[in-house]
């Protein structure tokens, strides 16, 4: 009797099972998958959005000269074309080393500041960007440098004081045509800056508040130079 009942039960139980399987198949309708979003893009300048970087953690791009610091004789804006794209960002500057019997390391730079809390850059292994530096008249000296500088004003110096100038940096290769430059985070150092950071490079990378692309003209005392820097596709990986 029980066997018969169970045999009879096969069909409806099978039907219920079929319903379940069909429902399970229905569940598979959302055939979705994730994609690799790629590197964090600080900016590729394609949005043309009032100098706002693509990464919302950063504020608008600005430019200026340093040693001495001034906004005169320098300008920056979106430029065409970009590296394998429509737009890039360019800096045009004329820098002069004041005649004071010493090299002032005058230069000009593009900078974007972090919005809100400092960014921990140690989660990235490399920063990559495309750059092009075209010398003008007077030309850049051959020893001119392209620097990538990561500022960390919340870090402390070895003597425990704070400074807006605390940073780690790295020299990047450049030429007068587009060059994609990958820089490893571990190679950022404080060697080119005048002060040492308590905790070293790592302490600075953990609390970066500004990213700066600087052309250090390395002019002789009293010398001057004109140049244009193009930057594009700045990514962190």
């Amino acid at each position, binding site marked *: *009797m*029980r066997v018969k*009942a169970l045999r*009879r*039960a096969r069909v*409806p*139980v099978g*039907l*219920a*099972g079929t*319903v*379940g*399987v069909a*429902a*399970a198949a*229905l*569940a*598979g*309708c*959302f055939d*979705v*998958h*994730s*994609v*690799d*979003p*790629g*590197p*964090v*893009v600080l*900016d*590729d300048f*394609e*949005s043309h959005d009032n100098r706002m970087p*693509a*990464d919302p953690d950063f504020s608008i791009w600005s430019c200026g000269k340093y040693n001495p610091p001034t906004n005169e004789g320098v300008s920056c804006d979106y430029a065409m074309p970009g590296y394998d*794209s429509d737009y890039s960002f360019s800096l045009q500057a004329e820098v002069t080393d004041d005649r004071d019997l010493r090299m002032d390391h005058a230069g000009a730079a593009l900078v974007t500041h972090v919005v809100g809390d400092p960014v921990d850059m140690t989660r990235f292994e490399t920063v990559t960007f495309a750059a092009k530096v075209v010398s003008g008249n007077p030309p850049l000296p051959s020893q001119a440098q392209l620097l990538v500088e990561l500022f960390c004003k919340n870090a402390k110096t070895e003597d425990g004081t704070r400074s807006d100038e605390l940073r780690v940096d790295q020299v990047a290769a450049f030429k007068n045509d587009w060059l994609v430059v990958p820089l490893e985070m571990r190679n950022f150092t404080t060697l080119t800056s005048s002060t040492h950071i308590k905790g070293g490079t790592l302490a600075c990378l953990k609390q970066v508040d500004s990213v700066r692309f600087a052309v250090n003209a390395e002019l002789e005392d009293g010398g001057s130079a004109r140049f244009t820097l193009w930057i594009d*596709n700045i*990514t962190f990986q």
Partner: protein
Amino acid sequence: MGGGWAPCRAAETAREAAAADYARGIALANDGLYEAALEQFDSAYTKSPHFAVLYNIGQAQIALGHPLEAIAALTKYLHDGADQVPLSRREQVQAQLGLLEARIAELTIITDTPRAVIRVDGREVGRAPLFQPIRLAAGPHVISATTLAGAEVTRTVLLGEGERQRLELALAGAAPARKPASAAPSAPPPVPASPPLEPAAPPPLAPITAPAPSSPAAPAARGPFLRRASYAVAAAGLAAEGAALGVYLWNRHRYDDWQAGNAALATTTQGSAAYRKQALANNDLASSLTSANHAILGLAIGGGVALAGAVTMFLLDQRERHRSGEFSLGWAPGGATTVEWRACW
């Protein structure tokens, strides 16, 4: 040739009349008027005996609580129908017969006076000694024994389903008058030494003891619980399936968004900010939709399991109901067992 037509026409007329009775019987049975339906089926069978009508007679007898008559009709149905009865119907009827037989009680009647007329419910069933137990339906029955001299003893017995009882009727010295009494089941009848001709002092009525519930009664008690549980579980299963469908429908437009985003990614430069932005948005959607998939899957499988469980419980309940005698009546207005009234044989 001509001699063959007249009987054929007569038979045809009888079949037509029987067909009408049969159709009325079906209609009455469908209305729950089993007594009237039985009359129509009996009439149809009388007018044109066809084995298939016996099936309906049997079902009507079951509905009316006449297991003995049902057994008789269904047994004859299987016998007369022979290989014309489809296997499935044969199995069903055999199952019914088995259940009906299990409900039949047997009463062994013993008297101390040979040749006493034994009556059950007023119907003579033989003269003492009866060599075989009387098969009776469960319920109260009036048993009487009457000697040739007119002395009579009457007892009332209550038979349970499948119960076997023994009843001893002492007629020696009994008055020729009716003395209703009752007998305790499975016990010697309390026949008091009533003085003759004293109908005013009948033997005290022994309490009619209901027999212990027979085995099918227990599952029958369990039946409603199983049935209700199956409904509840089925409702839960359906709710889960409905919820799965709801989650699916709720997320469909999001899936459309994901697909659109995916298509947009294909046309966006990989590594660009736009690609990353779109990819991150799409990945968020994908993550959410994956969660929805899990929810749908869980609900669907849970619902399916619940439905399967409900069906199983329902079938078990059906089985118990069958075992306890709660037949569902099945009439035979069509199919292989249909009465071929129009045939002329």
